[in-house]
């Protein structure tokens, strides 16, 4: 019974919190702020315990306690660097933690560059060059023309979108304002901007559909609770 009670109590709290958050639609108010404060505390607390449990406990402390000699290259240096990083917790000692931060920023920058090159540029380059690759046309040749047009449109769309962002400008002759090359300014950029507008429209509709799913879920939850307790 005791668990049943906790579940019912939980449902009531969830119901109240849902209404408190939805009240933001009417305007910024005390109830919404209270719900946000509870949410920031709960979410941060839960995420903190999860990370401490899964990372610090399982990947650092347990290996150190159970088998200190194994994996020395991982446990000892990261423990020392970690304790060193804790100096960032006090504004007086913060300066001493800069070397560890420099290490993390260096690793982050390399991960970003590596991810961009090996995770985006090379795969997208390969996929773009395969758009007109007959190997990937349908084996029975049906719809070859539509496949080709589709590939061509995607190829052109990709290139004009990329061209739109050109930053450099140069004065195009005596006394004229610095501008991008006429080919870019008058043809590629407008076409690129059109593709971008359509792409953003699709992505925006996707976010909206996901949010609508959440709205319907909350409406159903509130009605269920009302019907259940009435």
């Amino acid at each position, binding site marked *: 019974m005791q668990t049943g009670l906790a579940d019912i109590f939980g449902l009531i*709290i*969830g119901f109240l919190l849902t209404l408190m958050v939805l009240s933001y639609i009417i305007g910024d108010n005390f109830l919404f702020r209270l719900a946000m404060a509870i949410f920031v*505390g709960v*979410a941060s607390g839960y995420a903190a315990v999860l990370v401490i449990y899964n990372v610090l406990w399982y990947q650092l402390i347990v290996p150190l306690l159970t088998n200190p000699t194994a994996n020395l290259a991982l446990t000892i240096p990261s423990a020392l660097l970690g304790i060193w990083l804790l100096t960032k917790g006090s504004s007086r000692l913060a300066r001493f933690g800069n070397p560890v931060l420099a290490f993390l920023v260096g690793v982050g920058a390399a991960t970003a560059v590596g991810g961009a090159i090996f995770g985006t540029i090379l795969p997208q380059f390969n996929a773009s060059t395969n758009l007109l690759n007959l190997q990937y046309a349908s084996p029975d040749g049906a719809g070859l023309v539509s496949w080709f047009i589709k590939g061509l449109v995607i190829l052109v769309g990709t290139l004009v979108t990329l061209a739109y962002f050109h930053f450099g400008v140069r004065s195009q002759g005596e006394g004229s304002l610095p501008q991008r090359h006429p080919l870019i300014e008058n043809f590629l950029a407008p076409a690129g901007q059109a593709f*971008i507008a359509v792409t953003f429209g*699709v992505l925006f509709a996707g976010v909206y559909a996901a949010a609508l799913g959440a709205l319907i879920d909350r409406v159903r939850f509130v009605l269920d609770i009302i019907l259940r307790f009435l």
Partner: protein
Amino acid sequence: MKTIFSLINVVIAIAAGALVFLGYVFPDLLGGMRAILLQWAIILAAFALLVGILNLMQAHWRKVTTKQPKAVYSLVVLASLVATLLVTALSGPAGKWSLWIYNNLQVPIEISLLAVLAIVLAYAAARLMRRRMTWYTGMFLVTVLLVLLSTAPLYLIGEVSLLNSLHSLIVDILAVAGARGLLLGVALGTIAAGLRVLMGADRPYGG
């Protein structure tokens, strides 16, 4: 004296970055070193989380002690944070009471925030033409309406094949082209930002 320390920080950042990047390029030779450095980074990120939690609590505690306006909310943040830390630490991440807090406090609030997002997005779309009336915002709006209509069968009417073919034309062709161009552009920007750090030009770490 200060310049020596900043020089050391810059050297550390460049050395660590170069080793990790070369680990991508020569996985056989430096893959192991890259994995270790990345593992250090994961564990250090966890230590940073401890500092982050301390930072969060300090900021809200200072608001309470200095009696700034609306400090009551900071008090609620601190209370809910400490309570969650205690309950989750004692009963474990998958413990009954941890899941109770998660399912009955965090999940309802997060879903409700996304529900509010639906109203906010509809309002933003309705005001877009007033804020920026151009051909492109017009195309954007038409695309949004067409994709929403073709996401699911129409109410009472059901599937409309014209809408489905429009949906696949827009989503499978035009959006894929635009998305690929955007991703390539973002990748170029990311490379530039990362290289500036690896060259020691940008030094956000107090170098």
